[in-house]
């Protein structure tokens, strides 16, 4: 076979693909939950920052603006090393493994979630800010006209409507987030990339095992594309908007190929 002349160990490739080792699965699982938790935190922090940037107080606007400027203007890799190694080296804060309800969360995983969440929150705040701005001012006035306070109008009328504009770019960011978890290996988070590297160096099956890893990353982003498509359709339905029926396949293909919706090049 051609493939064997390339010294591609087919059986190793298939074996790790369909019957991955526990170490490999553990890495995959960490990649997933770190991404999900960091993204959820990023949305919450991002909303606060986005609202702060609309504050009537200049000082609050300034602080929020500086936050976004710094986090978007520096590499995630550098932020990770500062949070995990830098803080510890200067004795400011040293992450420790903690055990909650019998589950141990590694120090490096805590630092990873925190840093990813902060980094992503800067991007989310811009996305949410654009989403809030996309809601017609008449919506806010309509809410005020029935006697809502500005806070109530924001909470019950403007923010829910902004979500419709936020979900598509949020989805693209989450796609990017899942892939960028691979940089967490520099602080020793045993996620998919680091585990793959370890298997590679102990078996010398570099090509096979990284092809397996690539397929798992692809599976994750593809599953997410399905979830995102479903979510967007659901939000549209809750506005009484029926989308033209498009096949799932068409909408997924579009998601990976339409330059507007590609999340590439954003996070280095």
């Amino acid at each position, binding site marked *: 076979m051609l493939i064997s002349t390339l010294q591609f160990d087919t059986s190793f490739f298939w074996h790790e693909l369909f019957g991955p080792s526990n170490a490999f699965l553990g890495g995959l699982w960490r990649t997933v939950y770190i991404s999900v938790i960091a993204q959820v935190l990023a949305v919450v922090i991002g909303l606060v920052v986005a609202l702060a940037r609309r504050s009537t107080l200049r000082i609050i606007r300034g602080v929020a603006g500086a936050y976004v400027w710094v986090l978007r203007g520096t590499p995630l890799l550098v932020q990770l090393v500062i949070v995990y190694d830098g803080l510890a080296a200067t004795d400011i804060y040293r992450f420790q493994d903690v055990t909650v309800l019998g589950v141990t969360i590694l120090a490096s995983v805590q630092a990873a979630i925190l840093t990813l969440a902060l980094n992503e929150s800067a991007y989310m705040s811009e996305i949410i800010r654009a989403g809030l701005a996309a809601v*017609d001012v*008449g*919506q806010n*006035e*309509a*809410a*005020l*006209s*029935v*006697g*809502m*306070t*500005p*806070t*109530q109008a924001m909470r*019950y*009328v403007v923010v*829910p*409507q902004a979500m*419709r504009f936020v979900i598509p770019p949020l989805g693209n960011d989450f796609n990017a987030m899942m892939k960028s978890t691979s940089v967490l290996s520099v602080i020793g988070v045993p996620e998919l990339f680091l585990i793959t590297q370890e298997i590679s160096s102990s078996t010398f099956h570099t090509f096979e095992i990284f092809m397996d890893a690539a397929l798992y990353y692809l599976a994750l982003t593809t599953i997410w594309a399905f979830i995102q498509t479903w979510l967007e359709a659901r939000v549209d339905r*809750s*506005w*009484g*908007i029926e989308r033209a029926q498009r096949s799932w396949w068409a909408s997924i293909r579009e998601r990976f190929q339409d330059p507007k919706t590609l999340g590439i090049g954003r996070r280095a």
Partner: protein
Amino acid sequence: MVSSSSFEASSTGGDTGLIVHAHDIHKSFGSLEVLKGVSLDVVRGEVVVLIGPSGSGKTTFLRCINHFEKPDSGAVHVNGHLIGSKLDRTGQRTEASARDVATQRAEIGFVFQHFNLFPNRTALENVMLGPIKVQKLSKEQARTLAMEQLEKVGLGNKADRYPAQLSGGQKQRVAIARSLAMNPALMLFDEPTSALDPEVIGEVLMVIRDLANEGMTMVIVSHEIGFAREVADRVAMFDDGQIVEIGTPQQLFDTPSQARTKSFLSKVL
């Protein structure tokens, strides 16, 4: 201000019948003076229609009444309350907090030219939201109240439709129902039919006419002269930031005394 505080005192003692008491309102946007001293009193149950050329300040005046715009000077009382102001514990006038302004606005309905329905909520939910969040009614109470209001504007059978599934005329009727659900003392309308197709204007005017017959106090910006003649107790002619003429529809439309009114009417009639 002496005149406004005496008004406040008398209105808390008894019913003066004045729902709107706007006195000498001035408002500028930057260097553009949009309102140049507008005064208007509206008694309970009265319908006042505002007409006038584009840019004359009709919308801005309406928005000053419910504090969407803060007048630079002058005072607006609605139902005895000095809008945007409150008495603190020592009896001193201070600027009202956002919450106080919200409470004042709850008794002033506002109907927008472009409806501004909440697109992510059904007709029923649009009407229910104010009663739930502002009046703190239970969902069940709010639902009953909202259904009553929708039936009143003839849309009981469209309660579960989303705004995107309604015609312009239906949207505007839902918007009116949404205001009415707050049981307002005053309804303000800013060109409620000017964004509508001609064939659905009638159904919205019909709803407003019914409100007038029920004794609702209303200030309506409208270019529907025939409608104004029919429902208005008084018509006010705006020009260049001032009310240049005010009177019954017959006086204003048939025997206008001001040249500016005559020339405006010759264009719209």
